[in-house]
């Protein structure tokens, strides 16, 4: 059923949609899966909305016709096949969660590397990558001087780079 749900989102099962929607309405587990697939899709397309569940459910109740086929996702699925699409999407979703849960520069390097490798030319805008700290630091140093927030605080914001360096050193 979950594979079919995925297919609905990508507009590949138009004839059976109504039956699936009826099941979706009554099954909390399927609704959760629905939310997850939307989160994944949004992550891949570069959106992140954290109030997905209420939004989707209210739309389902009021306006089932919003389930129009989504061409972009479907074409991406065709290009990579279902397995590739799902693996990519899952990795992206986990990376996004990791990013939200652990603020800091670095995501999970393995996760990030795996995601980048499987996404190929699929946009991966919310994928958090492990970034060599010296690059971030150089950019930060160059950037800080132009911030008016920073201007109010003198050189104080320059310590942002310090935190980063510590984290890098303690890895």
């Amino acid at each position: 059923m979950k594979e079919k749900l995925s297919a609905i989102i990508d507009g590949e099962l138009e004839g059976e949609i109504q039956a699936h929607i009826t099941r979706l309405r009554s099954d909390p587990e399927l609704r959760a899966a629905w939310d997850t697939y939307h989160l994944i899709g949004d992550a891949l397309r570069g959106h992140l909305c954290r109030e997905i569940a209420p939004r989707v459910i209210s739309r389902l109740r009021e306006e089932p016709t919003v389930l129009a086929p989504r061409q972009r996702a479907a074409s991406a699925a065709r290009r990579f096949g279902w397995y590739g699409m799902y693996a990519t999407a899952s990795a992206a979703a986990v990376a996004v969660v990791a990013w939200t849960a652990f603020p800091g520069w670095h995501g999970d390097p393995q996760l990030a590397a795996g995601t980048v490798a499987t996404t190929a030319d699929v946009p991966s805008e919310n994928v958090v990558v492990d970034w060599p700290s010296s690059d971030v630091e150089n950019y930060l140093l160059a950037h800080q001087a132009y911030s008016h927030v920073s201007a109010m605080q003198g050189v104080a914001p320059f310590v942002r780079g310090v935190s980063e360096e510590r984290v890098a050193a303690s890895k």
Partner: protein
Amino acid sequence: MTGDFACRVWHPVRVLPFLLPVSAAIAQTDPSALQWLQRIYAASEKLSYTGTFVYQQGQRSETSSIVHVADSTGPRERLETLNGIPREIVRTGDEVVCYLPASSTMKIDKQPGRRPFPAILSEQLKDVSENYTVKKGDVERVVGYSCQVLNLVPKDRLRYGHRLWADVSTGMLLQAKTYNEKNEMLEQFFFTQIKIGPVGRDQLRPRYSRQTKDWRIEDSAATRANLAESGWTIRSKPPGFRTVAELMRTVGGTGGVGHIVLSDGLAAISVFIEPVSGKRPSPQAGLSRQGAINVYTRPVGNYWVTVVGEAPAESVKYVANAVEYHK
């Protein structure tokens, strides 16, 4: 890819909630609150002080000492971290020197595009009041000083909110917090000790002088530039942001890096355009963040475009995806 992005951004359902003012921002900016903001900027330039402050972000915090001297030659500052890896930052006018003794590196950065105070002030305050609702809060005590609380509430979700605590008698900023759209604190600075008043210039002398060590010097060698002439443009900017500086510089030993700065009067977003170099590993595409700073990198032809800003990820990515190269 760029066409897709434009469609996504301007899809009405997507864009409307994004641009609608948050309900708290419907209230108008209080003119006396704007005057307070002006006082804070003035204090940051005209007061002398020594103190200790904490930068806190998530579970991490850093304590640093700061010396700030303002006299007829303009403000000078020295900051030194007190725990963790030693580091010292000295600012003299437009020049910032960063000493990293652990790696024997000295980074020198000059800011040719940075306009002196108070030339920026009136247009900057206008930008601030267009993009934020500035309101006075209560008077609260911070590190022994009575402070006026100022709330800067963003008018849309393209920027963060700020809460500031400024000393009632001098205008000195003693605490600052940054909030995201869910009103969660992203980071804060606060003094744990401060003495406002004359400071001897000897206290500005760097601990690590240029002679005491065999420093590897990284000079940014920044100069003003017109990047549009080189073919680089930002197709559309997030509402409320405009270009305030355009430079060419060296970043981390790589020369010929373009640098465009956008500002909304308070927050700044920097665009770095770096040629792909065999000399060092390529940055990875994607998003990373620390506290209120988001960084987003993507390849554009034979260049890496990296956008750094104390702004939400959406704004930073918006700018990165709008960077275009036309020969």
